[in-house]
């Protein structure tokens, strides 16, 4: 009769018996975990109490939360500054999206020079600081061509200055999205008689954009913050955006409360957007 132990074929020698665990530890694993967590909480509470005790609350409130200073900023903070921040963001995003799509398609083109140009463009503008590019668009180019003007004044300069950099990032995002669409989609469209261009427009790009909506929304968040650079172009009372607006208020009132107000207004844009990104990503994960 076969013994059960010998039924396992081919493994050769039986494994060596596991030695019994050494009984040095006094505490079980769960007890030690609990102890560690409690110690962590205690340290946190102690630090919090120390900060609260050390802080001079009156001075802090006077500096950062002066309601009268904050009140004077309104309604211009919203009707002019916040509005311009949003307008700059949307203009630069639209410009960058169109240019980024063109660059992405060039990057994937079978025509060599298109690919090289797109690659060069993307590498160049991802490697340059936005501020430098903005200087170039706002001052460098007008100096070189004094007889010509960028249409739209500061709006045009911000659109192009931030848009050309955003385009470089968005081009890479869109390219990845296009490549994430299975090759069979293009093949199926081609076998139905669609030209390459028609198949891209009707079949591949709509699916690619679905994939890249979350990263593109992130790009809007980055652009929102980058619009603060617009001040270097010498904005006026009507073209002023949030950061410059808060900086001006800081100078006239000699009080940092306006910076806090501007910060909260930025968060009013960016926090909902990042929630949206999270929701979009969750939805995309569910569809897969």
């Amino acid at each position, binding site marked *: 009769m076969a013994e059960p132990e010998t039924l396992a074929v081919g493994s050769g020698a039986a494994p060596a018996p596991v030695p019994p665990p050494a009984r040095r530890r006094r505490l079980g694993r769960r007890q030690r975990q609990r102890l560690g967590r409690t110690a962590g909480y205690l340290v946190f509470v102690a630090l919090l109490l120390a900060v609260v005790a050390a802080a001079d609350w009156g001075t802090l409130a006077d500096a950062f939360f002066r309601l009268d200073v904050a009140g004077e900023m309104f309604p211009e903070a919203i009707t002019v500054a916040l509005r311009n921040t949003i307008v700059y963001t949307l203009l630069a995003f639209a410009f960058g999206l169109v240019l980024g799509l063109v660059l992405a398609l060039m990057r994937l083109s079978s025509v060599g020079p298109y690919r090289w140009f797109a690659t060069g463009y993307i590498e160049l503008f991802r490697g340059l600081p936005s501020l430098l590019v903005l200087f170039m668009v706002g001052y460098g180019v007008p100096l070189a061509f004094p007889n010509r003007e960028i249409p739209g004044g500061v709006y045009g300069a911000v659109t192009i200055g931030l848009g050309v950099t955003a385009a470089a990032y968005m081009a890479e995002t869109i390219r990845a999205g296009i490549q994430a669409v299975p090759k069979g989609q293009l093949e199926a469209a081609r076998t139905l*008689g669609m*030209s390459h261009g028609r198949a891209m427009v009707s079949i591949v790009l709509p699916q690619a954009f679905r994939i890249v909506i979350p990263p593109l929304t992130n790009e809007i968040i980055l652009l929102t913050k980058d619009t603060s650079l617009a001040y270097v172009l010498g904005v006026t009372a009507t073209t002023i955006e949030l950061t410059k607006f808060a900086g001006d208020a800081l100078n006239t009132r000699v009080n940092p409360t306006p910076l806090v107000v501007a910060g909260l207004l930025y968060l009013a844009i960016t926090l909902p957007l990042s929630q949206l990104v999270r929701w979009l990503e969750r939805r995309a994960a569910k569809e897969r």
Partner: protein
Amino acid sequence: MPAIEIRDLHKAFGKLEVLRGIDLSVETGEVVCVIGPSGSGKSTLLRCVNLLEQPTSGSVHVAGVEVTDPDCDIDDVRRRIGMVFQQFNLFGHLRVRENLTIAQRRVLGRTRAEADRIAAVNLDRVGLADKADAYPAQLSGGQQQRVAIARALAMDPQLMLFDEPTSALDPELVGEVLAVMRGLAAEGMTMLVVTHEMSFAREVASRVVFMDGGTVVESGPPDEVFGAPREPRTREFLHRVLEPTRVSEAEIGAHAPSGS
């Protein structure tokens, strides 16, 4: 004039020669099933017919038009050749109805009303008239493949290419796709089918082509190829595919451990 005429077709991917001189013609109304082991070049052969793969040399004529001619308007030829893929390749962002109408409208220039009508007829043809508003992801694999067949049929193709249409399906869903294909064959559709479904090939094909190593080893009526294969390689393949439980260890060079 044959529906498909392939002459001395070669295809290499880099140094890998996948097709080494294929001659094959398919007459109008014929159902030709191509069988053979994985990597034998069956799918590549099929994809050369509508130029999804560019042949290295040789010629392919479809309904008298040489598709391998560099001046050939391939989009025009393709709209007359329906193709069904292993992975279905339905357009995931479009509803079933739009999957069937988009090429009708964009390629054939049909009006929305006419395209919708033809879509409805073809969905009914594959038994999915009630799924027009569903998205592909909401359908089973078998349903998706039937939609893919209906999508190809909506273009009124002169011939249909099937690239292992049931290989990605759960076993219980294979039958519904084969039923549609059998119906098409009975209606006289010209079909070139790459398949592992030997019973389908045996029952429906007018001719069976056995490929191995990039060449056609044997071809003939299904009764001959299945019933009395001439080539040893064909016999071995059929034995392994049709009687997998009777493949002996000696055949595959396995040796049971002795004296343990």
